[in-house]
């Protein structure tokens, strides 16, 4: 096979793979919109925000289709998870990159990768059997926003660690030498030079982690309690959009099923919003830095 033929074959293969993933996303969008059109036409878009609670199995007139509580719950659980995970993940990354050497550093890296690969159902079960009884001592029922956030935080810490470490690794290695030569201390170098320069990569990690936390299902179904209500404290049980879909999709039909597809569509929109907001935030940050 000639070189040019090989090249064009490789190009076709790669193009095929990447166009496949793009196409799949479009298919998912189209599919969700198509499936939720029944709910939008029968129930009307505004009722999903104005109805007081979620009771879709009643008939259309009596039924309640409020998704607001679940949207708030999704954002609350994921944001709290990020607030717990972000400092821990960042500290770990700084420790791994700037303070560890040799075998120990590789060991820490491997452990992070293993945690990243833990199946969510295992983490969920751990939360249910170990974490929830502990939180039960604070207040019943133990299944709560906090329980979900803690387990999700454990899930997303590796994402933050890996992306932060690689953001630091991508910095110009001369920076370290120059700073040393100028007599800049390690702490000051990390805080005032390395971190601002790596901020793009670090915040990309945060955004990915937040999106993953928002989309996670198994863990929240197992430890968040799944009660549809507006959370007033971190110890209140809540139901997230993902939890709602997982719990009811198997049994739903008609407008109820369509409403669940709509909540899936809203979830996808929220995740996209997080990505776009993250990008915009980064852009303004970078302009300031210049």
């Amino acid at each position: 096979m000639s070189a040019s033929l090989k090249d064009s074959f490789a190009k076709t293969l790669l193009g095929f793979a990447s166009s496949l993933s793009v196409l799949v996303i479009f298919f998912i969008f189209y599919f969700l919109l198509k499936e939720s059109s029944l709910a939008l036409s029968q129930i009307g878009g505004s009722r999903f925000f104005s109805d007081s609670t979620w009771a879709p199995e009643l008939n259309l007139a009596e039924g309640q289709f409020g998704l607001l509580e679940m949207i708030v719950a999704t954002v609350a659980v994921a944001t709290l998870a990020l607030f717990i995970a972000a400092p821990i993940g960042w500290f770990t990354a700084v420790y791994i990159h700037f303070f560890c050497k040799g075998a120990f550093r590789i060991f820490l890296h491997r452990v992070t990768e293993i945690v990243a690969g833990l199946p969510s159902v295992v983490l969920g079960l751990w939360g249910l059997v170990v974490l929830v009884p502990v939180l039960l001592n604070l207040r019943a029922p133990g299944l709560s926003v906090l329980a979900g956030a803690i387990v999700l935080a454990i899930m997303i810490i590796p994402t933050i660690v890996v992306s932060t470490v690689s953001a630091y690794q991508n910095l110009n290695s001369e920076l370290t030498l120059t700073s040393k030569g100028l007599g800049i201390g390690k702490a000051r170098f990390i805080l005032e030079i390395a971190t601002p320069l790596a901020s793009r990569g670090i915040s990309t990690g945060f955004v990915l982690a937040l999106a993953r936390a928002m989309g996670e299902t198994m863990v929240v179904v197992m430890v968040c309690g799944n009660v549809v209500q507006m959370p007033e404290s971190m110890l209140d049980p809540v139901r997230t959009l993902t939890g709602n879909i997982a719990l009811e999709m198997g049994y739903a039909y008609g407008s109820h099923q369509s409403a669940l597809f709509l909540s899936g569509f809203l979830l996808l929109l929220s995740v996209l919003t997080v990505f776009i907001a993250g990008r915009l935030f980064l852009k303004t940050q970078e302009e300031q830095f210049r």
Partner: protein
Amino acid sequence: MNKVKSSSFLYLILNFLFLFPLVAQAESTKVSISGSSTLAPLAAEIAKRLENSASSLRIDVQTGGSSKGITDVIKGLSDVGMSSRALFPEEEALVKSHTVALDGVAFVVNSKNPIKELSRAQLADIYSGKISNWKEVGGQDLEITVIDRAKGRSEKELVKDYLGIKSTDYKPDIVAGENQQCVKLVEGNSGALVYLSIGTTEFEQKRSSKIRALPLSGTAATAENVKNGTFPIIRPLVLVTKKKLSPSSKEFVQFAVSSQVKDLVEGMAFVAPQ
């Protein structure tokens, strides 16, 4: 420009070629079963026994709830559905049911909880949030953690009919999905109250002594009382098929309702219908 266009067209065709086999029909000697998670372990055991016998069938059992099991059969997504409730009249018109076993739904508490019995009115008050402490029903001074089940589960439907409270009046602390999650929740919380199928409850009690089923209206929640029909909340566990059975689903259904699997049915603490 032209080159770019033709290559992206090529990618599109390749994509469809790649996706097409995913939606193509499965082979015919495979029987796919979906539905009730209460019936699934039994169906899996029956399937295993049938596969180990002379049969050439390959049987795939998946859970997802009774309504999904029935809907899957109607839509042709699976060959046999599992349902832990009797069919609604409008479903009866479309599919055929075959009773494999009987089961009851029991209210279950933690073994540390000294409560002897709860009446139907007390249970209704607990589930609608009017009673929130065990001492109000003669128990210890401990908050009741009320566990409800996800909408559409057959246990939920049965208990809804039994308690007779409106679905918007339920004030649970937790809404749980799968049976195992309920068992873990009750094991870890001495104030918890949940409802579970008696089959699952007896099966779990053999494994762990941390949960206990409460009697209802003076009748103990046992398989025996389901068999003789005295327990108040009873349901049939049925296999659902199209009106006209394919040879492979017929083979499975006939085996599942035969006396060859009676020991399996009773092994799961269900009750054989005959």
